[in-house]
């Protein structure tokens, strides 16, 4: 995708194709010979894992759509019929439902990895920003998908989330009505959500293409956060990283399979096995686990509009990270202060998720969770807007190794000075 190509056509046919459409050349340069830092660790295998997750969701989703009926009167029963009457329908639906959770698990690991090793820093800003866009599209897709079974949580989740738009002054109610296609969440809403749920994954796939394209310009960052200097610092992508990615992918799939076959409803909410009923509000409306931290932020702000702004701001903030981090060093491995704030941030995110999962009036050790969530929200924003810029200026980083090769292979591999 960038840099001089090392591809030489091996046969007449390849040569013929290469001169007209250099697709074999593209494959060869990006997936075979692509020089990749030799020190990538397990956390760098999640890019491949995420591509796999997207493929699984699209394949199972296309099959589900063959049997699903997007109609408020029939949707719930059609999903149950997939579970009971369609050959291996239970397998396909449980893969799709748990696949969404695995997708988010993987994307969170991927994002925290990028945050820890400073993968968003120059010259990789656009990779990061495109990644944030993918994350946003994933959340929208997952939300639309959760509505489709038309159970109690589907319906009430859709009601709560779409109602957020009504917080916008003056035009808010009109926007909500426009989104619903009606004066409440109903059949029209379900139909358009199904349409969008089918559309967005293909847009995600296209944006993933941009993400990978942007990655192949500067190449991978690495746990040391230092640039590749000599060919000694890299190994060809194939076979080194194809085999490593494949091994860790299979470990990931084992975890996935344990949920699909032995705890298929672990991530689900029992209420969603009750058909949607606009007349009965569930006592606690809870989103899926991967949206809980944002839900906690929303609930912790006593003003609805402010809550929506804070929640949106939490995601928009991510776009600015490349410029909020003032440090010259990428990897937290060499940033003793930032490392501690990073881990505190990780804990805060989990804490926010916990707050979001609990009833709104819950407390731990006498402290109302709403206050825990407020402090955690404060840290979330403080981490990016205050800690990141300040620490980068006042911290003294540890000494960086001279090269990747030297760090991995020892001093003997160091290029002669």
């Amino acid at each position: 995708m960038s840099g001089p190509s090392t591809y030489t056509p091996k046969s007449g046919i390849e040569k013929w194709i290469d001169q007209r459409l250099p697709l074999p050349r593209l494959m060869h340069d990006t997936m075979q010979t692509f020089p990749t830092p030799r020190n990538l660790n397990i956390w760098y295998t999640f890019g491949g894992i995420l591509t796999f997750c997207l493929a699984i969701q699209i394949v199972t989703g296309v099959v589900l759509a063959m049997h699903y009926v997007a109609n408020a009167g029939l949707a719930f029963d059609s999903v149950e019929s997939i579970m009971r009457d369609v050959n291996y329908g239970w397998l396909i639906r449980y893969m799709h439902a748990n696949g969404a959770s695995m997708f988010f698990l993987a994307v969170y690991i991927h994002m925290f990895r990028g945050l820890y090793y400073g993968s968003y820093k120059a010259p990789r800003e656009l990779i990061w920003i495109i990644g944030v866009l993918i994350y946003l599209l994933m959340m929208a897709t997952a939300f639309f998908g959760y509505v489709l079974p038309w159970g109690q949580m589907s319906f009430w989740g859709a009601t709560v989330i779409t109602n957020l738009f009504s917080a916008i002054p003056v035009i808010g109610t009109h926007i909500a009505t426009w989104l619903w296609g009606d004066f409440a969440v109903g059949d029209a809403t379900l139909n358009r959500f199904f349409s969008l749920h089918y559309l967005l994954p293909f847009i995600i796939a296209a944006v993933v293409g941009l993400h990978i394209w942007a990655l192949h310009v500067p190449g991978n960052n690495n746990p040391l956060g230092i640039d590749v200097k000599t060919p000694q610092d890299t190994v060809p992508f194939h076979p080194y990283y194809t085999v490593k990615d494949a091994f860790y992918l299979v470990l990931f799939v084992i975890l996935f399979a344990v949920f699909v076959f032995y705890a298929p409803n672990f991530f689900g909410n029992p209420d969603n096995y009750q058909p949607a009923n606009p007349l009965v509000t569930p006592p606690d409306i809870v989103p899926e686990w991967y949206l809980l931290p944002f839900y906690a932020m929303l609930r912790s702000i006593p003003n609805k509009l402010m809550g929506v702004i804070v929640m949106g701001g939490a995601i928009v903030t991510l776009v600015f990270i490349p410029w909020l981090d003032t440090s010259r060093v990428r990897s937290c491995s060499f940033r003793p202060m930032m490392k501690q704030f990073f881990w505190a941030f990780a804990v805060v995110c989990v804490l926010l998720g916990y707050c979001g999962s609990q009833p709104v009036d819950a407390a731990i050790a006498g402290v109302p969770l709403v206050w825990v969530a407020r402090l955690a929200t404060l840290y979330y924003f403080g981490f990016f807007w205050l800690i990141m810029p300040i620490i980068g200026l006042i911290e003294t980083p540890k000494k960086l190794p001279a090269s990747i090769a030297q760090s991995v292979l020892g001093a003997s591999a160091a290029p002669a000075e």
Partner: protein
Amino acid sequence: MYLKTLSLGLVVGLLASTSAMALDTKRLEPKDEKFSFEGPFGTYDRGSLQRGYQVYKEVCAACHSANHLAFHDLAEAGGPEFTEAQARALATAGKLPADPNDKGETTDDKGAPLMRSATLADHFPSPFPNEQAARANNGGALPPDLSMVVKAREGGPQYVYSILTGFGGTPPHGFKVTDGKYYNPYFEGWNISMPPPLKANTVSYSDGTKATVEQEAHDVVTFLTWASEPKMEERKRFGFGVLAFLVLLAGVLFAAYRKVWKDAH
């Protein structure tokens, strides 16, 4: 909307803290009943499923529908596994509204709707023609559909078992059972609209099993769990094969990974 819940939550929290005397009618933790279908290798107890179907049919089905179950399910592998002939006989006993006859009539001479026997392909008939009829016959409460009741309740089989066996206690001092309701501390709020459905010997088991309330509840919960997850046995069996394959594949890939990387670091 969430604001409303928020303020409501705060008010409730405030009330709860100021009036410590108020009775907390939160539901009790479900009983720890053990079932054969638990764990990665658990399967449904065939005898329990067949007895459970009997309890469902003779007791529950008087008020509760189970719309997602079809009669042929009763004969399928991983379920109660009645023979096809038995399932057909059970179906024939069920009556469903018939299609209009050749003259286009939907009622007989006396004005009663035309009915027909169910077939293996039919779903279980509902006890009431519509929701209003169901409510009118149950003091205003709607008996929930039982097809997925085990999956649709926090606590699953243990919860349903506790509800069925949770009647008959003496309400604590200060708790008033609402008129037309029944005391059951395993139900949120402790007032349940369902009268105690099971008594000793409510059904008489043909296999000689003693029909205690606990036994009947255990059997019908086994049946209802199967109703919720009819493919559970297939799922667990399939999963074992998939995991065995994946572990093997992981082993092969690990060996390849070590070999490829041997000299690279």
